[in-house]
């Protein structure tokens, strides 16, 4: 459909459910992306060994491992690669754990082909999509509670008040333009803020992970 004139963008697609893999591959290939598909973690690692993809789309539940490990490895080896999770429900349980290792947003498995292509195109263009439910999950975590809330661990300590305000806006369904006007920002700076939010939620090293777990009271020394 939207064939790209410039050099084909390499997308590594990791999905164990064959029909889903086909449909995603189909949608992306039709949009002009150069898609490499993998059904297992091992296959995916083999593909990565051949070279860095521009975009990595991966499911989390893989037959021989977890997508989170793949995201972490990719993030470490190819910092330029944009990573997105393929999710069935778009729920925070899977998406947040992926974000903390370096993913940017998620793609629903039943999304329409045009939406699939558009999402990847935006990602490559440098936009960082964030859904209202994920934004909601993050801002609910910024509100102090006595005990750690259920769900995946997330450290929101580094977020600035402005970033939290932006997340509130997204969680309440406002567009970037509306958020920008509410917060007296330039509309163009909102995607940058969101990218920063993603980077700040990422846990970089094992040491940092331990430190943050201690900070949040998840681990007692």
């Amino acid at each position, binding site marked *: 459909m939207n064939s790209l004139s410039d050099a084909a963008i390499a997308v590594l697609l990791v999905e164990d*459910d064959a*029909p889903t893999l086909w449909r995603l591959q189909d949608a992306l290939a039709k949009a002009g992306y150069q898609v490499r598909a993998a059904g297992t973690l091992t296959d995916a690692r083999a593909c990565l060994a051949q070279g860095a993809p521009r975009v990595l789309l991966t499911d989390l539940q893989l037959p021989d491992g977890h997508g989170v490990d793949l995201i972490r490895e990719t993030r470490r080896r190819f910092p330029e690669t944009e990573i997105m999770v393929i999710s*069935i429900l778009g729920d925070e349980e899977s998406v947040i754990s992926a974000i903390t290792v370096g993913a940017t947003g998620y793609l629903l498995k039943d*999304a*329409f082909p045009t939406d699939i292509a558009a999402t990847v195109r935006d990602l490559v263009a440098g936009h960082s999509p964030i859904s*209202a*439910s994920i934004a*909601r*999950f993050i801002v609910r975590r910024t509100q102090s509670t006595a005990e750690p809330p259920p769900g995946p661990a997330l450290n929101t300590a580094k977020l600035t008040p402005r970033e939290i305000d932006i997340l509130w806006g997204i969680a*309440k369904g406002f567009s970037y333009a509306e958020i920008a006007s509410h917060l007296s920002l330039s509309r163009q700076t909102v995607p940058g803020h969101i990218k920063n939010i993603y980077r700040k939620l990422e846990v970089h090293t094992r040491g940092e992970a331990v430190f943050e777990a201690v900070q949040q009271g998840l681990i007692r020394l």
Partner: protein
Amino acid sequence: MSAAGDAQPDAPHRERQRPLTSRLVRYLLLQALIAAACIFALQQSLPGPPAEYLVATLSLSERGVERPVTPPYFSPQRHAMDDPPRFTGQFDRPADEAKRAWSVFLPRFTNGVEIAVNDVVILDSRRDPTANRPDRNTPVIAVIPSSLLRDGANTVSIRLFIWGPITGFLERVWVGPDEKLRPSYNLRSLIFVTLPVVFSSWQAILAVILGIMWVMRRHEPAYGLLAAAMAVGVAQAFLQTPMGETAFSRLNVVLISSAPIESALVLTFALLFSGWKWRPYGWIIFVPGLLLALAGLFGNQALSRTLFLFLAVPMVGLSLVIMAVVTARSTLKRRNVASLLLGCAVTIMLTCWIVDLLSVFQLMQNRIFTARLSYSAMLVAIGAGLTWRFARALNEVDGFAGRLVTQVREAEEKLKASFIREEERARAAALARERTRLMRDLHDGLGGQLVSIVALSERGNAGAGIGDAARAALKDLRLVIDSMDDIGGDLMLALGSWRERAMAQLRPHDITLEWRAVTPQGLPVHPELRPWHVIQIVRLLDEALTNAVKHASARRITVRIETLVDHDGHDRGCITVEDDGRGFDVPPADGSAGAIKAARGLRNMRNRAARCGAELVLDSCDQGTRVRLTLPHRFPDSDAAAG
């Protein structure tokens, strides 16, 4: 720099000093007024019997010299027991008075008298212990036995016994009908005999009260000292003046001459009461009293009496002066009622003491001692001060108890609130856990299978309907999971997700979704909002959207979110979904199936709105349809319309 530094602490000091000075002036004025009132009262002479019964001129035989005198008479002698001055006077008893009893009335004398009429002794005041106390102004009256009296001239003779420490004194001699003399006697007896007994009883009670106070509050020795002072005062008041040397007479002497000890105790109390700290040199206060006590134990009575004049009287005066200064200072600094009362009492006593001293030195025409009597003012002040402190302490206790009750109630309420919060949190946590479990189950099972169905159906054209159904099922799954999330009563958070889903749904149909949050905060927050309310509202909105897409062929859908104020003044959220489609009243041209579906959808929407307590208004014409949902002020707890 230094000038500024000096000026700074000076300013508030000066400010504090000004009212202090004015308070001092006011206090001194009050004390001067009290002293003046005392002097005025002391100047008033007590009413005497009719003047006709006064034996105005007496013949005095003193130390072998005989001469006429007109009382009041001050004898120069301090001791005259063996050869006392003898006064002789004449009086006429008319013959018609024979039926009436006649009396001899001596209003005041020191120290003792023996009255004889026609050379027959009818009264010896030395037998009356209270009359033997020179500090009391005991009057005597003696009824003359009728057999002694003759019609016409009679003789009355008085022997004045003097045993110190002060010189002898005889005020006046009255002889007349008993009924004429008695009222004057009674008045003096009431003031100078009965009243001191009453005050001494009061002093005894105070001694007991203060003693108990001290026993219960050992850290306040002031009360112990005052109790001791009272006890000494009581002992002093009720003991008799020893006339001879007996086994107990020495002890009696010690106790009767205990005025300096008493005044030292009261002085120490006043000092401690006004915040003075006990110092070792404080024992100096007790030295005169102890010296006098030793003199009483080891010396003779005459020595005691002499020392009393030189030790006790100045000691009492000195104590009074110090107390006057101390209480004044305490009143001005601490401004408490007890100190003020004490200060006034001290002024009264001091005035009386000075007047007494003047009469001892015969600078007054009379010899009525009022210092001891004025001590009752001190007793009243002490009693009043104690009661004042007690009442204030009770008030403080009441206030404290009241505060405590309020605090306990507040704490209880906080506890209750935190318990409710805790329950709420536990409920939310349980819901979140359940949601997580459900999510995992759906992920592993139903969700994945539905996705597969969507994918498979897209591979052949025949399965398009199946794919749509599967996609709708997935959408609904996401809605169920989403609405179970804890959104803290902020419906806007649920609408945010709904907007995303709605946009994804509308995109393939090329329909624009316009989102307008009219009020900045969107909708009011409802703490009572439950997941099932959220599901009803979101499904209702989905229904409105689906109708617009499927049956109205709309190109643009507008969602307005605002907070309105209803006629009760409550904030009510309002969500409006408006499309530019054909409307519902116009049945679609291609048959009635769509119309029936739309009708069912409308019924469903009304149902859902009713279950949430929301109001639903539908306006539809050929220009478009408007669904207006007004949320309740409070969402219902139970699903009323479920049954």
